[in-house]
């Protein structure tokens, strides 16, 4: 939906307050450091990205799925539903909403198995345990928790508009800023700020990298520059973290500390991921 962002459910219900976000996260942060929490979110964003690429969906689908994932855990503990199940569920739902067409049930599950085996065995040495019945059940919890707000606005469109506003020829700036927007999905900014502001922050960083002076262009925008700088800071913090972080080596230990569902994290096929409370009903549909 390219409609009016200011009337959207994204704006009205899903721009969260930083303090809220921290409060909701408290129970997970009793077990995890803030940095480890972020590493987990980055890791699963990477997992969603890998699934999306393997399924050959567009970046738009991946971005929407990542935002769904973040929305869910913005309001729920990591232990409520296993993120290994939530990630493909988000891709599954996003591909329907973004009109990519339905990913077939068997293809989704087999892709999960392949991707986990080939790319994420360092983090998940066992066979991928979930079946489509788990995904379908999980999808309903995801829908419910998001209050059926499924249309997500992304910074890509405003970014393209901004770039064409000051230059018709500068593809490098757009490409660099585009990648920064992709990276921003590994931070909380998509939960906290309107997409056009994230686009501006990405543009701002891109200009610094490309040593392009857009000060006067920025000055003419009637936009809260303090907020743009806040976003910039959060994205730069991500790059700072990445500098000294080897995910392949470290993530296994971090995931070990992740709060998990109370019962067995790898349920046998055809049974829910058994959180006991949240997912106790067995799905009837296959």
């Amino acid at each position, binding site marked *: 939906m390219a409609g009016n962002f200011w009337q959207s459910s994204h704006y009205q219900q899903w721009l969260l307050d930083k303090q809220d976000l921290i409060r909701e996260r408290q129970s997970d942060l009793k077990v995890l450091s803030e940095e480890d929490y972020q590493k987990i979110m980055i890791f699963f964003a990477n997992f969603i990205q890998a699934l999306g690429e393997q399924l050959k969906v567009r970046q738009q689908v991946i971005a929407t799925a990542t935002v769904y994932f973040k929305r869910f855990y913005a309001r729920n503990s990591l232990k409520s539903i296993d993120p290994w199940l939530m990630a493909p569920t988000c891709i599954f739902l996003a591909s329907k909403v973004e*009109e990519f067409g339905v990913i077939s049930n068997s293809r989704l599950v087999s892709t999960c198995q392949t991707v986990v085996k080939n790319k994420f065995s360092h983090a998940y040495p066992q066979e991928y345990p979930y079946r489509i019945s788990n995904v379908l059940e999980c999808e309903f919890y995801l829908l419910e928790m998001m209050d059926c707000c499924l249309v997500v606005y992304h910074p890509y469109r405003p970014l393209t508009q901004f770039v064409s506003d000051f230059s018709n020829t500068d593809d490098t700036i757009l490409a660099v800023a585009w990648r920064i927007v992709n990276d921003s999905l590994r931070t909380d900014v998509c939960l906290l700020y309107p997409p056009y502001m994230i686009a501006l922050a990405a543009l701002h960083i891109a200009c610094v990298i490309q040593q392009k002076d857009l000060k006067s262009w920025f000055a003419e925008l009637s936009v809260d520059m303090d907020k743009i700088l806040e976003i910039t800071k959060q994205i730069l913090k991500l790059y700072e973290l990445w500098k000294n972080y080897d995910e392949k080596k470290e993530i296994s230990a971090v995931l070990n500390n992740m709060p998990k569902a109370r019962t067995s994290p790898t349920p046998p096929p055809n049974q829910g991921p058994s959180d006991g409370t949240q997912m106790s009903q067995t799905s*009837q549909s296959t």
Partner: protein
Amino acid sequence: MSACREIALLRELKHPNVISLQKVFLSHTDRKVWLLFDYAEHDLWHIIKYHRSAKANKKTINVPKNMVKSLLYQILDGIHYLHANWVLHRDLKPANILVMGEGTERGRVKIADMGFARLFNAPLKPLADLDPVVVTFWYRAPELLLGARHYTKAIDIWAIGCIFAELLTSEPIFHCRQEDIKTSNPYHHDQLDRIFTVMGFPQEKDWEDIRKMPEHNTLMKDFKRSSYVSCNLTKYMEKHRVKPDSKAFHLLQKLLTMDPTKRVTSEQAMNDPYFQEDPKPSSDVFEGYPIPYPKREFLTDEEEDKADTNASKQQQGGGGNDQSSAHGQPPTKRVRVMPPATTAGTSMVTSEYQHMHTGNVQGTGSNSQQINFTSGNMSQTSNTSSTNGQPRF
């Protein structure tokens, strides 16, 4: 699939002439989705039917002179909003145009059944790939019948033109015998024949790109221009007593333009002289007159069950007594009401592409009972009715 898309769109849409989604209920155990809408007492399918039978019985119905104008204006207003928000309806027909009964929104048009609506600002796949057949034949634009692969705003405008003509004459303008609707081939000989019989065969100069249509060869093989030389819209409408020099006719002509690139947009149509001429369109299409149309009939739970088991839904369905015969359309709305003992005044409407199940509101969970259903339509979508075994959601 369609349920998911519908909810995503409905969740975002807010306009006085577009039906608003009040609430979504998710039933985890059986994967049913219940949608609660504004309740609308009337729809154009029933309104037109009422006028047609009155005409047949030579009775007059006391409605304001400009009711058709008010209806059309509000339909255009709603569609303009959808189009401005990059949403195509794709299935406009009288049954999907609701009109509010007594209450604060008396006489207001509500465009409904957005199940097939989709975003089209950046289609990721050719739209025709996802659902082969979308618009009901009678309201289907000629370019669709000739195999156009992409849906456009112009396709909705054509359907509005058809509805406008039907409001003016009480007859579906492109009425056509309907058989197998499930065909995936968009080309439909009889429907094209009917359009040409009313409109005449399109001149090369009027629709240059017709040669580029996928089914152009079939068209040239199957049809002869000479069979339609004496046909035109003026004649057809004159036969139905719509004067060719009236502003209504001029606007109709602009809406029913064969070449989709030359068809008016909703915005242009709203600025048409037809609407500037007195009497002007009004927000209550009935303008305070008593509403002559009957209220929806309701199905009780028992009747509903009977209807389901007897597979005789047309006889049992609320207001559906003669829907399947007289007008050649499938029953459009099945309405039912909770027994007074449980939730008085609760009503649920399922759209024709959705399937009613025996479960009721109470079955969706305890919190739904706390909701005041008295002014709601409830429609349900569920994967269990899907034929290909793939969850619709």
